[in-house]
């Protein structure tokens, strides 16, 4: 059977994937640029093409609370949000993870107020990096779709909630050619959901969300942390099964012309696509440049990162958010910490870029490589953290 490509935006694709996943419950609240996802999905519900009970809550806090209730009742559950919505869910994100509920959320990356701004950066999901959710970033529409289908299986096997992110407007509203998997094959791939527990089990009543004091909390948290480590094994297994079945191969990280690269950048999300063009151009001219794309940010694949970057001389981590902590972006801090494992390690600098949707173009990425080559040559970096594309 020939491949069938369709033109779809990121949001349309995520909604289509949700239709195919056919969750039992979706509880959600609208926010730009994620609104469309639940809007399109609500139409699927209205048209009777899914079995889902759609709960249009009065806030994101309640949306996540309802997701938690529904998942604790043994349902397959999804929601979607962005930015302030994710921020309002924050308290409940921890609780979803602590209760080990495999809620699946397409999250559209948008910056956080103030100033209010509806465009892309990664502040929202980076702010939620320690809440205990698996986080998978997407480079384009196809990858977002594939990530979301895989996410259902990963979440249910790891018994952890998961967010699959798309860059706001860039992916969410950008139309691309993509291949959808036939409905039946998605159904087969994700399988029937067998919940670990359900509060509807009235014959075996038990208590969810009990209070732990100093005598048990640490053990419970330790088990949750272990589950996240376990997810590191589950994710590649699911990605491999997906690849074997549908032909598209994925891993926690993606190396792009990296094996012999002397200088490299590390990016997440849609910027990887732009960077590939720059790298190809520079390679044409004989520059030994490459890239590491981080697809899975949580659990943080530090072993893979260290392995992939061990022979690079100079590395720039590109962060689409800033920790506002005095030492650059969060990805920089974590990658730099991981690389400390090595006795001989690359020089690592940080570029914070694209805040509030500020465009990142070929020239800007090229300027980063120019800087890196200079550092490689002189052995000196003028700055550890630079801000790219901002008027200073």
């Amino acid at each position, binding site marked *: 059977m020939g491949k069938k490509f369709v033109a779809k935006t990121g949001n349309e694709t995520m909604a289509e994937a949700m239709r195919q996943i056919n969750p039992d*419950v979706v*509880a959600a609240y609208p926010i730009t640029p994620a609104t469309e996802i639940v809007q399109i999905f609500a139409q699927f519900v209205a048209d009777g093409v899914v079995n889902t009970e759609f709960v249009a*809550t009065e806030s994101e806090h309640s949306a996540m609370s309802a997701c*938690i209730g*529904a998942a604790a009742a043994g*349902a397959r559950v999804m929601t979607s949000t962005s930015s302030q919505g994710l921020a309002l869910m924050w308290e409940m994100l921890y609780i979803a993870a602590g209760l080990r509920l495999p809620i699946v959320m397409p999250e559209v990356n948008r910056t956080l107020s103030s100033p209010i701004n509806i465009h892309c950066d990664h502040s929202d999901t980076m702010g939620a990096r320690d809440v205990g959710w698996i986080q998978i970033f997407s480079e384009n529409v196809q990858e977002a779709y594939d990530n979301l289908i895989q996410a259902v299986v990963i979440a249910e096997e790891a018994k952890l909630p998961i967010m699959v992110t798309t860059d706001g407007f860039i992916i969410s509203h950008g139309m691309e050619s993509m291949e959808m998997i036939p409905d039946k094959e998605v159904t087969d791939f994700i399988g029937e959901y067998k919940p670990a527990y359900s509060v509807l089990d009235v014959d075996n009543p*038990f*208590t*969810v969300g009990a209070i732990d004091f100093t005598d048990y909390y640490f053990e419970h948290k330790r088990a949750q942390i272990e589950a996240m480590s376990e997810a590191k094994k589950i994710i590649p297994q699911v990605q491999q099964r997906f690849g074997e079945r549908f032909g598209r191969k994925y891993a926690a990280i993606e190396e792009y012309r990296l094996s012999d690269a002397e200088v490299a950048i590390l990016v997440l999300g849609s910027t990887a696509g732009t960077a590939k063009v720059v790298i190809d151009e520079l390679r044409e001219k004989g520059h030994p440049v490459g890239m590491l794309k981080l697809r899975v940010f949580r659990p943080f694949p530090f072993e893979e990162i260290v392995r992939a970057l061990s022979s690079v001389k100079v590395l720039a981590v590109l962060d689409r958010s800033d920790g506002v902590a005095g030492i650059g972006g969060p990805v920089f801090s974590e990658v730099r910490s991981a690389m400390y494992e090595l006795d001989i390690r690359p020089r690592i600098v940080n570029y914070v870029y694209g805040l509030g949707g500020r465009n990142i173009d070929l020239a800007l990425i090229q300027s980063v490589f120019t800087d890196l080559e200079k550092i490689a040559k002189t052995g000196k970096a003028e700055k550890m953290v630079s801000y790219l594309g901002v008027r200073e």
Partner: protein
Amino acid sequence: MATLKELAARAEEKGELLSGGHRACLGCGHPIVIRQALLAAKEPVIVGCVTGCLEVTTTIFPYTAWRVPFIHSAFENSAATVSGIEAAYRALKKQGKYDKELRFMAMGGDGGTYDIGFQSLSGAAERGHRMLYLCLDNEAYMNTGIQRSSATPKGAHTTTAPAGKVIPGKQQHRKDLTACMVAHRIPYVAQTIAGNWKDLTTKVEKALAADGPSFINVLSPCPTGWGYKPELTLEMGQLAVDTCFWPIYEVEDGKWKLNHQPTEKKPKKPLVEWLKSQRRFAHLFKATDSEELIAELQERVDQDWEELLAKCE
């Protein structure tokens, strides 16, 4: 509605659904309310409860006092959490994956209901989830050490609206949450007390039978926070009714009905009796200039009572 005999038979059959051994203070109103409410339910119930005294005293890991499925997720969201459970129940039933007939109870203290959980309660009521929301109103945030809430009556001492040399306790009148819930036009709304088993169980039965959201506001006396002897909890509830400080009534499909009226033989008691019964109002009787405030409190009760009578006509 169930007679004492029937309730006793049900208790015999189901066993104690909220077991002893929990850590609520001696004389706490909350467990009384819960035991009676669970007994009133004929179908199996799923309970969702917010953070607060009830939850922290009954679910200390590895123990639980609950013999029905119970979920706690946070402080402001039992209505939202249970709305998710109820939606899951409908989804699974529709697909033939679940076949039991269940009832759902969301609950929280006055803080988790009047204040921080008000929005999620309102949202769940508007969406029409079939669930009973029980507010266990002890008129302050007891779990965190007796702070004011919007259910705290004017003049009461709490730790965040304390009685001091110039300010005599809380400065504002309480919010009428029950009326707010009536305004949602849900099928069943009621007020009751811990201390009148007949009224409480009857209302819970009616609420669970309603085909939609229902809300019961239960005045649940707290000896620790109010300052009275633990053995007087049931009497406290009754005194609140007898002074008309907390009238018991119900609103069924928009129709208001009083469930207790003062009579000639047992006339309405003066509010001072209520105020004098609790340490949280003690400052009003030590100060020399509280007369005006006490009169204002009485006036407010009278006014509310008249308005309620008019609605119940």
